[in-house]
């Protein structure tokens, strides 16, 4: 983190109502007068815009502004939490009073002297909303609409969504953490419906990251999303029923890494493992995947949707090895769970907003590349499924069961791709599925910047990635035989 982001945060969050660092010290000091182990203040200002094109017209636009401060007090395993949308001293004091009621009065822990978190500089602290004029945003959306319709007369409906967020956050904690971050985030999405002989199919494609809107103009990325959405919709027009039953599955590179997010990632979040509620609990050092699998969570990738200079507790993000050559190495931690488990925080403490409590969350989760040529992996399958794009997924971390839903997939017969099949849900057991990864490709790719992860009602942007890989058996939920 540069000094700049702390200055920017002070100017945006504290200066408007004349709050000083000394005021924040005072509030924390007051909190620690109870039997409190740690406390923190989280300030946030975010501005969001969204534009929507439909029927060839940009008919809707919205602008949203949100700011506030969350106050958290932790005593043992207990957490007290309150928040206010008014960043003024009386509101802060009132929230602090409510939060510290979790602990008995008496006892006193000292507030550590603040040391600025040395976070990363993974993205430019720009305001994406101002990075393109309204005229140019609209022109970009029209260009994508025109391109999608030009590509094929079977394209009947085109919808384009453009969104940008400019967020400034600042964390001041009793353990001496003083962190700030300026986080741009943009997203562009194209959805199309194609029709042929009365059959209609949809598809969508998009991307983004912690960049300015210029990203979508560079390298014709925006046009690329339109072309990809059309291609997928036309493929789906030809799709036959998906098969039903257990079979080998080959997953394509990039976004199909949603497999790792569900089958591995959530089960390795520190809170579930501290509580012993995860299928991976107590298994550090054990083989939980085949030797071909090395899986990491990395919040330090430049400009990625899931990246953060510091997490929402002021801890710098890091490259955390979760599984190395099949062996479980570690969990993703926030401060509370790392303290209770006696390990180091890993920069995975995240929250949706000042009005939500932080908890261990993923950043960018992916599998490292292996040695196989992707064609060789497909050719190895006698009869199975080749799935290259997915909608979303879900996991029950306790039983380990996870699902993810393919929206572009093909039948493999005798080592060759024979026909596109309709969307179907794939289901497996995380630890089992990972031990059945028998081939890993040399084509590691990260997703285009589209993922949003939900946990306990809180949404945060994340990234996933993987090379092409083969799982010897997963259950494919089609209707065919």
């Amino acid at each position, binding site marked *: 983190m540069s000094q700049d982001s702390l200055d920017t945060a002070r100017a945006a969050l504290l200066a408007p109502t004349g709050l000083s660092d000394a005021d924040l010290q005072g509030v924390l000091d007051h909190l620690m007068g109870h039997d409190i182990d740690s406390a923190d203040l989280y300030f946030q200002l975010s501005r969001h815009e969204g534009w929507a094109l439909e029927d060839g017209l940009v008919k809707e636009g919205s602008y949203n502004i949100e700011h506030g401060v969350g106050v958290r007090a932790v005593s043992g395993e207990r957490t*007290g939490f309150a928040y206010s949308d008014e960043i003024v001293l009386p509101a802060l004091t009132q929230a602090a009073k409510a939060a510290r009621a979790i602990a008995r009065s008496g006892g006193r822990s000292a507030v550590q002297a603040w040391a600025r978190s040395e976070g990363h500089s993974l993205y430019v602290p720009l305001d994406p909303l101002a990075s393109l004029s309204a005229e140019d945003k609209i022109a970009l959306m029209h260009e994508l609409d025109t391109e999608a319709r030009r590509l094929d007369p079977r394209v009947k409906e085109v919808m384009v969504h453009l969104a940008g967020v400019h967020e400034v956050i600042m964390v001041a904690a009793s353990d001496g953490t003083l962190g700030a971050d300026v986080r741009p985030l943009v997203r562009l999405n194209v959805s199309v419906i194609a029709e042929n002989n009365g059959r209609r199919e949809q598809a969508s494609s998009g991307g983004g990251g912690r960049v300015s809107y210029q990203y979508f103009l560079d390298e014709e990325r925006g046009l690329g999303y339109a072309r990809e959405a059309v291609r997928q919709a036309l493929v789906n027009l030809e799709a036959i029923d998906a098969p039903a039953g257990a079979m080998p599955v080959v997953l394509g590179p990039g976004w199909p890494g949603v497999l790792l997010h569900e089958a591995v990632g959530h089960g390795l979040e520190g809170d579930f493992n501290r509580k012993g509620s995860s299928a991976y609990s107590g298994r550090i050092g054990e083989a939980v995947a085949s030797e071909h699998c090395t899986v990491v969570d990395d919040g330090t990738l430049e400009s990625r949707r899931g990246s953060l200079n510091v997490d929402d507790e002021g801890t710098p993000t890091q490259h955390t090895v979760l599984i190395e050559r099949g062996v479980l190495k570690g969990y993703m931690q926030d401060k509370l769970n790392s303290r209770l488990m006696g390990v180091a925080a890993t920069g995975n403490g995240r929250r949706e907003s000042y009005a939500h409590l932080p908890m261990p969350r993923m950043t960018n989760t992916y599998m490292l590349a292996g040695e196989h040529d992707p064609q060789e992996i497909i050719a190895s399958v006698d009869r199975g499924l080749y799935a290259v794009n997915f909608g979303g997924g879900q996991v029950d971390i306790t039983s380990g069961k996870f699902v993810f839903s393919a929206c572009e997939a093909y039948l493999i017969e005798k080592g060759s791709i024979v026909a596109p099949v309709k969307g179907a849900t794939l289901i497996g057991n995380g630890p089992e599925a990972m031990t059945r990864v028998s081939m890993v490709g040399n084509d590691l790719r990260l997703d285009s910047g589209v993922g949003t992860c939900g946990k306990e009602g809180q949404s945060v942007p994340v990234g996933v990635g993987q090379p092409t890989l083969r799982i010897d058996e997963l259950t494919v939920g089609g209707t065919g035989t």
Partner: protein
Amino acid sequence: MSLPLAEQAPEPRLPAMTTTAAVTSTSPLDSSARLERLIADTLAEAQRQGASAAEAGASIESGLSVTVRMGDVETVEHNRDKGLGVTVYFGQRKGSASTSDFSAQAIRDAVAAACSIARYTAADPYAGLADSTLMAAQVANLSLHHPWALTPAAAIDLAAECEGTARETDARITNSEGASVSTHEGVRAYGNSHGFIGVYPTSRHSLSCSVIGKDGATMQRDYWYSVARDPADLDSAKVVGERAAQRTVRRLNARRVATCQVPVLFSAEVASSLVSHFVRAVSGSSQYRKASFLLDAVGGQVFPEFVRLHEQPHLPKGLGSAPFDNEGVATRAQDLVSEGVLRRYVLGSYSARRLGLETTGNAGGVHNLFIEGNAQDVGLLQRSLRRGLLVTELMGQGVNLVTGDYSRGAAGFWIENGEIQFPVEEITVAGNLRDMFQALEATGSDIDRRSNIVTGSLLIGRMTVAGS
């Protein structure tokens, strides 16, 4: 708990009551007066800045949530949220903005932001407010506000009783995700430049419990909850705790079944999701975008003849009750489906104009949609199955509304000769929604009232179950 990772187009945040923030309100009466003034000021500001029409929605909410885990307090959260959303029209062009700040300057800024957007959006012949003659004449008191004077200490005791009951119910319950008690109350308001302003208070309370069972090396987790407008209508902590424990224990030692085609009985708590897919398919936006597997289906047989879907927006204490919809249009009791025939779409004024129809007072969705069928005893339904699957949990997205293709992860129980044989997991259930609705064989009398969609169990004649 669900942990979805969804790839979805970002929904532009239009002036729903979405923003979260704090407030120092004292009573619903004060809040009501404050919101009414806020809406009036916002509409006046929109007019001052040149808008030809405008609408605004706002809410104030406060609450308390506590969680107790393994007998000790885990979290105590104080929630205080408020938000204002405004949409301005300049002829047929529109723009929207929202803020959590209710100061005069913030209102001016929000209106200015919305006006600025409206300078760039295209004229849309269908844009605009709902017809002024359709506005709710009065805001009926639907008994939606029943505050709960619950102290954090009392909430903790209740949650502890609930979790304690669950943990004592069965020796195989070895761990817990905790029990939670939450209480929320607030005020909602909507107004537009027809001169309509409606304000009403609401409350919502819940009690939930999630515990983990262990047998051998495998663990299972399940949960139960109760939710109501009035705390007096909540199930007791004991009932919720026992139910959570029973649901967890009965899942232990689940296994897969071989891939097959069998009748599938969706238990009441998951059956409402099937109906929600139906509602989306017959909603105006899916129809005018031609993004529905039930296109132009009004007048057509979409369910068997014994099925009626009836909307009751004015049900006292109803979780989905509302005196007016998101555009101020008076809500009314009406059929969506009768004798199995689709009678109308689910429309707000925009989609209605696009389709050349009149709004059905469903801007924002349906209100207490009841599924009335042949109301069979669910035990009898199970016993009627020679071979079949009872589904008690569904996972993942896997629903394509354009084609109706349906494929979701599932867990539940295998039935043979009318008796539950063993718990089942790691399977999928698949079919096409249009065919599934036609193949509905029975509705259960075990009505689950915890959702805006009120249904009993639903028995679908035949689906593909994929397993080992």
